[in-house]
């Protein structure tokens, strides 16, 4: 039973700047709950990326560093190697992790750096105005593909969780969503597992969270939340790689 109606201690009391119905702030809250439960507040360092989540330091009361666009995994590598006792996590969007930072992310994963990467996948570049991102699904209309994403011209969506699950250095790799209460609770469990993988020095841990972008999807908050169910048909949820084995306690 999760603890409800209590504000996590590491969540600052600032009002979120996200649009109504954005799932970023649900993930922020879950992240704070996990940091509190694992007692990591003194030694956690977060890497905020460029995107809507670049103001992570306004909301989470741990040390946050802002990395250049896409370079979070590389900066995190440096931090973790210099100070192995720290718990380093990156909080990136799909444009940051899978587009401009693809090289940094894939090489950090293949080196098996002991960091935790969270990727918020909302299938568009949210902050810059809804352009096509690598994870944009087919036929989705964005500002740079006004007729919908055509596989002949713009290619197919990139499925990062499936890609990373084939890497030997990756210890934990999963995809989840936060559009129903059940999935919120599951996401928290997986988030905890992603941090435990780092605490046990198993290797790179990756968690992809399907999110909404109501403004750039041109929907209201509720229909955007329901639209995530359609994304799940393209990006299936699940744990793709887990070195903990099937019977580990969370």
């Amino acid at each position: 039973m999760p603890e409800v109606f209590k504000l996590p201690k590491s969540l600052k009391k600032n009002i979120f700047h996200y649009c109504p119905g954005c799932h970023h702030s649900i993930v922020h809250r879950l992240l704070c709950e996990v940091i509190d439960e694992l007692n990591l507040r003194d030694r956690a360092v977060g890497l905020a990326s460029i995107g809507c989540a670049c103001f992570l330091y306004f909301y989470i009361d741990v040390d946050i560093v802002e990395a250049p666009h896409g370079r979070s995994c590389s900066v995190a590598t440096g931090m973790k190697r210099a100070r192995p006792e720290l718990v380093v996590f990156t909080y990136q969007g799909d444009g940051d992790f899978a587009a401009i930072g693809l090289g940094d992310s894939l090489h950090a994963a293949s080196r098996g750096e002991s960091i935790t990467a969270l990727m918020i996948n909302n299938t568009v570049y949210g902050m810059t105005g809804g352009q096509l991102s690598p994870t944009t699904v087919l036929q989705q209309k964005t500002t740079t593909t006004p007729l919908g994403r055509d596989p002949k011209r713009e290619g197919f969506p990139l499925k990062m969780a499936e890609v990373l699950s084939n890497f030997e250095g990756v210890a934990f790799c999963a995809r989840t969503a936060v559009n129903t209460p059940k999935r919120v609770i599951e996401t928290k469990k997986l988030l905890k597992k992603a941090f435990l993988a780092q605490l046990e020095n198993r290797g790179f841990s990756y968690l992809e969270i399907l999110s909404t972008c109501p403004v750039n999807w041109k929907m209201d908050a509720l229909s955007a939340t329901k639209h995530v169910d359609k994304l799940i048909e393209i990006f299936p949820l699940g744990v793709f790689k887990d070195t903990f084995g099937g019977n580990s306690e969370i």
Partner: protein
Amino acid sequence: MKIKILEDRCKGCGLCIEFCPKKILALSDKRNLLGYKIVCWKSPENCNHCGICYLMCPEVVFVEDGEIER
């Protein structure tokens, strides 16, 4: 336990109203300082403290009374 709605934080997205199993929440006509219509109780006596509004609320609007001293 008394649940408090932090009206300053609410952005009127309606996720709590949709997912509340007892359907006891509604959007009011009142607006907060940000200009959003805020959520209010329709029948607070039916609440069984399941916590689903807290889980789904993106803005952490629903907290236990006394949790935030602003």
